[in-house]
């Protein structure tokens, strides 16, 4: 047992929830999970949101977010029960023996202090090294993690470096005090796909070189397959399957694991565009302010009625700005946008109600796109009254039809958004857009905030609705797997320009331009050794500088 780093036995974690208007009650978040981790090994914790993977990960540092508390079981690090010595014992453990890398490094760094001060803070607080040696070690780690100008990198403030760099800096911070165990909590989820691959490779090398043990938490099985030795699949706070990475990926035993492995099995045949496009974006340029460079530069794309155009690109590529221009939220500077043969007025307020009706939008964050104080019936019913003047029983009947169309039963009629899951909320948003009976729906990253299986359900629903209602989608996403699954034509955007555009087949068939090649290679694949292949095969370096 000497080489056992972490041993969690029969862990139970609970919290007290305070639902408005009801009595507080206790809920169980993690129910009887056990796991072990050897020194220097990596264990992947995988599951969807609510599976309890972050909660279990943080428990290895004896930490519970908010009112979360450990209600049973034992947690042993290096043979010692970490819960035996109370808060002071945990303080000695955290930052010295067990370190943490958060999902959003941008939020996890304190904006008020220089990076170096934060990176060496735990090392100094626990007296592991003196300041000079700690800073020297930090510089060494910055270099190992591929950060630019490692000597002076620490002098910067968090807002002065990019998201990918912050994520590496956070890894350096965790490694600085030479801990035995690091908890990586979705460290690459918030990053662009081309950045993710670099950070992932940097983390993998750092784990390998320092020999630190790690818990790697993620919802993306393809990502965890690249770094973990073993994988523990979790669902609803319980362990589903545990095994070596190869077995989980190649011979999953449980149905749930199989579903995770085979996600994105959508059957869709791409169609050829028609000669008369529904939407014709012609050499459009736009900028947010006269003294800023243009965000869109001579963008031209077309979309046929009843088809799907996927606009793909990384953050800052201008894909959401294109949506804002089409909807009129951002008046274009030059060029023309024609809809059903007619030129669209540039500004939103000079468009008539009929144009507004035919062009609807669904957003990434279903949470904030709905009024929390309206019921589902009100949310879906408002466009019915606004555009068609439906009232009373007629309106109720139509709302119920729409609920049926999005595969939610009549029991959801009187619910509030807070009573819905993430996927259900997005379905209601889709129903709201459909209520206007539009010709075009702009879908802005509608599945990005959802778990893979839920996202799959939404995509299937969208395709089915397209068939029955004949609506066209402008589908904005950074996720190439989604693009592959649902598009008829594709536009790849980079820094405000369309770098590749054509039918599904044209865009996804070699030869590729450098950027599209980079994008395609960066999408994690569900096989061992993909990361190394991808890094070796790259023609172009990432945008993460």
């Amino acid at each position, binding site marked *: 047992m000497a080489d056992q780093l972490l041993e969690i036995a029969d862990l139970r974690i609970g919290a007290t929830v305070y639902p408005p208007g009801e009595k507080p009650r206790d809920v169980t978040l993690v129910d009887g999970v056990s796991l072990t981790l050897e020194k220097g090994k990596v264990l992947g914790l995988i599951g969807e949101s609510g599976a309890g993977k972050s909660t279990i990960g943080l428990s290895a540092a004896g930490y519970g977010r908010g009112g979360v508390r450990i209600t049973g079981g034992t947690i042993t690090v290096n043979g010692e029960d970490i819960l035996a010595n109370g808060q002071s014992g945990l303080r000695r453990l955290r*930052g010295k023996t067990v370190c943490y890398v958060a999902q959003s490094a941008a939020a996890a760094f304190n904006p008020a202090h220089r990076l170096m001060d934060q990176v060496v803070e735990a090392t100094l607080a626990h007296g592991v090294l003196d300041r000079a040696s700690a800073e020297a070690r930090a510089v060494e780690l910055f270099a190992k993690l591929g950060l630019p100008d490692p000597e002076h990198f620490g002098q910067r*403030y968090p807002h*002065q470096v990019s998201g990918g760099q912050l994520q590496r800096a956070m890894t350096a911070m965790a490694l600085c005090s030479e801990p035995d165990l690091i908890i990586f909590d979705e460290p690459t989820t918030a990053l662009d796909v081309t950045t993710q691959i670099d950070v992932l490779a940097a983390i993998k090398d750092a784990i390998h070189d320092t020999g630190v043990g790690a818990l790697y938490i993620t919802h993306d099985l393809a990502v965890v397959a690249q770094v973990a030795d073993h994988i523990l699949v979790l669902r609803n706070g319980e362990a589903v399957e545990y095994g070596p990475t190869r077995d989980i990926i190649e011979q999953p035993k449980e149905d749930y694991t199989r579903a995770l492995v085979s996600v994105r099995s959508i059957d869709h045949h791409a169609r050829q565009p028609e000669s008369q496009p529904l939407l014709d974006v012609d050499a459009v340029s736009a900028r947010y302010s006269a003294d800023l460079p243009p965000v869109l530069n001579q963008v031209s794309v077309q979309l046929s009625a009843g088809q799907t155009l996927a606009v793909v690109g990384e953050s800052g590529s201008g894909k959401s700005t294109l949506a804002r221009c089409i909807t009129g939220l951002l008046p274009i500077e030059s060029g023309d946008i024609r809809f059903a043969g007619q030129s669209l007025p540039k500004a939103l307020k000079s468009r008539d109600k009929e144009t507004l009706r035919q062009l609807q939008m669904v957003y990434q964050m279903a949470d904030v796109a709905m009024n929390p104080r309206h019921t589902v019936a009100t949310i879906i019913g408002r466009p019915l009254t606004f555009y068609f003047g439906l009232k009373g029983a007629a309106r109720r009947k139509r709302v119920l039809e729409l609920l049926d169309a999005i595969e939610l039963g009549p029991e959801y009629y009187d619910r509030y958004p807070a009573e819905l899951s993430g996927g259900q909320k997005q379905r209601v948003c889709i129903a709201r857009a459909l209520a206007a009976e539009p010709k075009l729906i702009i879908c802005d990253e509608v599945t990005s905030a959802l778990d893979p299986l839920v996202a799959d359900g939404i995509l299937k629903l969208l395709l089915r609705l397209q068939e029955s209602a004949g609506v066209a989608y402008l589908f904005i996403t950074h996720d190439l797997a989604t693009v592959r699954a649902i598009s008829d034509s594709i536009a790849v955007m980079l820094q405000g320009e369309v770098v590749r555009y054509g039918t599904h087949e044209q865009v996804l068939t070699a030869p590729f331009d450098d950027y599209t090649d980079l994008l395609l290679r960066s999408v994690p694949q569900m096989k061992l050794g993909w990361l190394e292949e991808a890094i070796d095969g790259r023609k172009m370096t990432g945008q993460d500088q």
Partner: protein
Amino acid sequence: MNLIVARLIAQRLALGLLLLFAVSILIFVGTMMLPGDVAQAILGQSATDQAVANLRAELGLNDPAWMRYLDWLGGILTGDLGTSLSNGQSIADSLLGRAGNTFFLAFWTALIAVPMAILLGLLAVRYQNRWPDRVISGATLTTISLPDFFIGYLLIYFVAVKLGWFPSVSTVYDGMPFVERMRAIALPAFTLTLIILAHMMRMTRAAILNVMQSAYIETAELKGLGGLKIIWRHAFPNSVAPVINVVMINLAFLVVGVVVIEVIFVYPGMGQYLIDHVAKRDVPVVQACGLIFATVYIGLNLIADVVSILSNPRLRHPK
């Protein structure tokens, strides 16, 4: 100091000056609109019409309003606040000593109250919803809920009369030894501290608690840092902006809102001076005091703005 910060600060300064200018017009117009005639007021009801007319001409009251305003403004800019109508003395001379007294009291009160409020705020966060937090919140709420004159008289009764530690009347005079002067202002300073403490302490507590929800606080906890260190090093620097605004408003109160305390302790400050001359319809004095109060208010809020700007690392260190 970089260009962005310099520009922002210059902007605030220019805005402050503009505001002060607007306030000076408001004060002037406001005092003009007061009922009654200054000349009549000085000479009394029995004066002949001729005497009143002569005095009006002498005081320049027949000039158009804008001319009188420019005269007044020009005087102020050159340090001449005008002449008191009631005693014929230069306002600048009599106001100087009074203003000095007011600022002296405000300075020492602030020196005790501000650090104490912030410290108590930090402690309240550290022991949130436990007894230290409840005691601090309860005690400061009590002192802010009681009327200021009541606290003043309570202190006079117990500390000055029963215990005899400090004088109940805060007489100060020129050339008074420093220690004596401090003894004299001890009670009013303590009273004022009790009055302004709660507001600042509660704002500190609320602002820090707001920041305590941030992800970087979790990072700090997972570094194994102690509670007070997390609050002081990681939470407080990010809650300076809201705290400094409340602190400055309270400091402004120490200068412009302490009339009642000055009266209770018979302290020769600006507030009492203003009240005396309002009663005598001494318009130039009222105008001068009003302008000084406005300057203090605008100046302190300007400082709050500048500190808020400087506390933002994104502005201090642009990309």
